[in-house]
């Protein structure tokens, strides 16, 4: 298929295609980080993860309207405020959900799956009642739209760069939080041995709540960022759920690095396949490969081998 093109054209395309893969990678990382915290560290299956993301998107939508109407001068930077607010709002909802629901279910992971699925239905209906069934259009500041021409032929989407920077930033933040802070130590201690953690004076209830809230908050930020590249509607969250879970599981639950590595491999596979095959078949092949590998290596790519 490439015989008709000049060398420079091909270079340009491959560069951009590589970039497309990186954007997809960043999207996967953003989707999966919140879940990796919640599922990996707490063992909770949050099927409402997508709805937490959409909550962040709606926050962004409301804020964009607010700034357009009352603070047009600051419109160009509203997006940062929106992301911060999305974190707070989704996190607060997460905190409430943990308190009302999740904390009663820590010993029944499959039941958290059903309960959070119920939660996702409720949230969808709430969004529909509040914001209407239609998708809402989120206005993005002008500077975030468009592309940077690197050469004559290579153009890099600005929102792609933004998503990538954000993915790196949040990954680093989460890494620091989980592996370099006292709080992260506590979370991991609880994950390893809840009773012991309790006994040595870690406030497990509070730590659980914060972990869940932060996971949801990160989802909210992801949702906020995705208003640049995707749709915001009551049921849009469901589009993400299968991909997100596969990324986390494929990476090996409990391993942040694994999640990132798995996001990288899945995104590259999908992006390359999409380039050479039709979109649907690329998707099917990617999913099949992931499921196939998971069957061969159920603990995921990066799970540690532990004494049982």
């Amino acid at each position, binding site marked *: 298929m490439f015989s008709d093109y000049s060398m420079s054209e091909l270079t340009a395309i491959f560069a951009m295609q590589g970039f497309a893969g990186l954007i997809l990678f960043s999207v996967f990382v953003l989707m999966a980080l919140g879940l990796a915290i919640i599922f990996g560290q707490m063992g909770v299956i949050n099927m409402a993860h997508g709805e937490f993301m959409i909550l962040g998107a709606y926050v962004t939508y409301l804020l964009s309207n607010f700034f357009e109407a009352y603070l047009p001068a600051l419109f160009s930077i509203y997006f940062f405020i929106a992301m911060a607010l999305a974190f707070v709002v989704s996190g607060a909802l997460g905190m409430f959900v943990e308190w009302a629901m999740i904390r009663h279910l820590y010993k029944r992971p499959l039941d958290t799956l059903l309960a959070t699925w119920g939660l996702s239905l409720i949230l969808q209906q709430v969004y529909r009642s509040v914001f209407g069934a239609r998708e809402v259009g989120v206005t993005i500041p002008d500077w975030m739209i468009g592309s940077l021409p690197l050469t004559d032929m290579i153009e890099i989407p600005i929102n792609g760069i933004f998503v990538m920077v954000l993915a790196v930033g949040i990954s680093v933040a989460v890494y620091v939080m989980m592996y370099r802070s006292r709080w992260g130590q506590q979370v991991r201690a609880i994950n390893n041995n809840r009773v012991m953690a309790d006994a040595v004076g870690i406030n497990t209830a509070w730590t659980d709540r914060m972990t869940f809230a932060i996971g949801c908050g990160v989802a909210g930020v992801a949702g906020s960022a995705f208003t640049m590249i995707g749709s915001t509607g009551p049921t849009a969250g469901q589009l993400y759920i299968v991909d997100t879970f596969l990324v986390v599981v494929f990476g090996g639950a409990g391993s942040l690095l694994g999640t990132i590595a798995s996001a990288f491999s899945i995104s590259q596979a999908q992006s390359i396949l999409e380039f050479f095959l039709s979109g649907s078949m690329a998707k099917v092949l990617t999913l099949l490969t992931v499921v196939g590998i998971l069957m061969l290596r159920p603990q995921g790519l990066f799970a540690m*081998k*532990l*004494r*049982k």
Partner: protein
Amino acid sequence: MLDYNNPNFVLMVEGLTVSFDGFKAVNDLSFYVEPNECRVIIGPNGAGKTTVLDLICGRTKATAGAVAFKGHDLLKMREDQIVHAGVGRKFQTPSVYEDLSVFANLELSYPKGHGVFGALFFRRDQAVRERIEEIAEMIFLKDHLAQKAAFLSHGQKQWLEIGMLLIQDPELLMLDEPVAGMSVAERKKTAELLNRIIADRSVIVIEHDMGFVEDIATRVTVLHQGKVLSEGSMDRVQNDPKVIEVYLGH
């Protein structure tokens, strides 16, 4: 080369090694168990005692070494095949089926109907019932057959688990801390039970309670950092300066 059919030993472990991410929990371990022997494995925490049992019964896969049991290469077999070959294993924390009655617990361990369809069409006939009652008598639970296992005391659960192994009549029985959490009276009864059991088979026991070890042990193996530190009769081991150092030293 290990002679898998050596009739002098029931179990032969040679050069057994397992490493978890580089950490060698069991390191080039060898020991031999004779018929009708009661071997007690002792050692400080983290010595690799439970891991050894895990390796023998197939719960953990070995990195290197050989385990021979009556001509079988246990390292190549699945857990259930190892059980069928005649190795029984009791876990450290009593694991019985709490939702089922004592009777059903024993029945599930009865060595018949182990295939899918065998289980589906398994009939609870006279022979089954008699055998279960016989075992129940032995493990002091004859009056508790109808009870849900969840309601048994900790010690009774330990006995039940031993009973679940006995009903299979294994040639090698491996017990991980069988008297942990038992009262003094219960310990005595358990020692009695074990002595009766040993008559027909070999037993490997992990235990910390030295009094209890003295009551039952034919020979003792001391593990330290995944290796054999000392082996022999109770007396000999107790007087081995290396053992004394590990237990009392530093």
